[in-house]
C-alpha cells in the first residue's frame, strides 16, 4: 500500500479520536445553562492546548493542524450545545461522538482538497509516497 494511503488512514483515525476527545472535554467543562460564549472559549482554547502535545505524543504521524481544527470545532459545537440545552436533557455522549466523527471527516476532506489545490504538481504522488 502507498505510504500516503497509510497517512490518510492515520489522519482519519487520528481526527476521529481527536474529535471524540474534544467533545468529551467540552462535556466535562461545560454545564447546561453556562454562557454560550464561555463554552465557545473553552471549546477554542482547551483543544488548541491539547492538540499539539497529542500530535507530538503520536510522533506527528497525524497532521497537527487538522487535529487542532477538528478538536476546536468539535469542542466548540459540543460546548455550545450543552450550554444552550439548559432547559433540555443533557447532551448525550452518543451525540458528542456523532459531532466528533462528522466534523473530523469534514475537516480531513477539506484539508486534503485544499492541499491538492496548493501542492506543487511535481510533488503530487511523490512528496509522501513510497516507491
Amino acid at each position, binding site marked *: 500500500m502507498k505510504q500516503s494511503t497509510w*497517512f490518510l488512514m492515520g489522519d482519519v483515525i487520528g481526527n476521529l479520536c481527536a474529535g471524540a476527545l474534544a467533545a468529551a472535554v467540552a462535556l466535562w467543562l461545560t454545564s447546561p445553562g453556562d454562557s454560550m460564549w464561555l463554552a465557545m472559549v473553552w471549546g477554542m482554547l482547551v483543544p488548541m492546548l491539547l492538540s499539539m502535545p497529542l500530535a507530538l505524543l503520536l510522533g*506527528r*504521524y497525524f497532521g497537527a*493542524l487538522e487535529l487542532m481544527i477538528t478538536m476546536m470545532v468539535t469542542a466548540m459545537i459540543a460546548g455550545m450545545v450543552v450550554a444552550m440545552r439548559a432547559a433540555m436533557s443533557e447532551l448525550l455522549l452518543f451525540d458528542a461522538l456523532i459531532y466528533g466523527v462528522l466534523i473530523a471527516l469534514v475537516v480531513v476532506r477539506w*484539508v486534503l482538497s485544499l492541499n491538492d489545490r*496548493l*501542492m*506543487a504538481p511535481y*510533488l503530487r504522488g511523490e512528496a*509522501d509516497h513510497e516507491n
Partner: protein
Amino acid sequence: MKTNLEANQRKWDRLAPRFDVMAGEGGEKRWRRAKQHLFAAMGGGDILFMALGTGQDISAFPPGKTLHAIDVSERMLALAKPRIEAYRGTIHAQQMDIHQPCFAPESFDQVFTSCTFCSVPDPVEGLRQVFNLLRPGGELLMFEHTGSRYFPFNIMLRTMTLLTQKIGPDMDRDTVANVKAAGFDVQAVDNVFLDVVKIIRAVRPKAPV
C-alpha cells in the same frame, strides 16, 4: 545582540535531548520524499547545510557528497555524530551561529536549509549572511515551514507561535518575503503541504543588487 544569540544557543542546547521526539518520526517520513527531491540538487561545488540539528536530514542526502554543516547548538551536533559517521560521504560539522559566520565571503556554491529559518532569531539578517557566503549565481535551496495565508491556519499558526517561540521555532514566519528582503532572486516556491510546508529555490544574483 550577543545576549540574544547566547539565549538562542542555550534554548537549542536545552531542547537537544528531546529534539528527535519533537521533530517526530512521522513528520520526517511525511516530508522525506520532498526533502530527497530537494537534496538531489546537491552538486559538485562547495555546499553548506545550515542547522544540521541532530542530523535527521542526513539520511535524505544523496551519497558521495562533501559538505560543510553548521548548527548553533554544540549538543545537537554531539547527538548528530552517529548519523554524520554513518553517511556515505563527508560532512564537516561545526558549531556556528549564522549571524556570525566564520567562513570567508563567497565560499559556497549552494546553501541548503531544512526547517532552519523558523528558528533563526533575526531571519533577514541571517539570510543576508547566507547571501554573503554564496558566490554570485550561487543557489539557496530551502525546505521550510512558514505561516499561512489561509483561514484558519493563519490564526492558528500565529497563536501557536506565542507558545512555541519560547521553547523552539516560530510557526508563522514569512520566509519567502525574508528571502527577497535579503536580496535573493526567488526562482520558485513549491508547496509541499498546504502553503505551510514549502520548498524555496533562490539565487544570489550575479550582478550587484
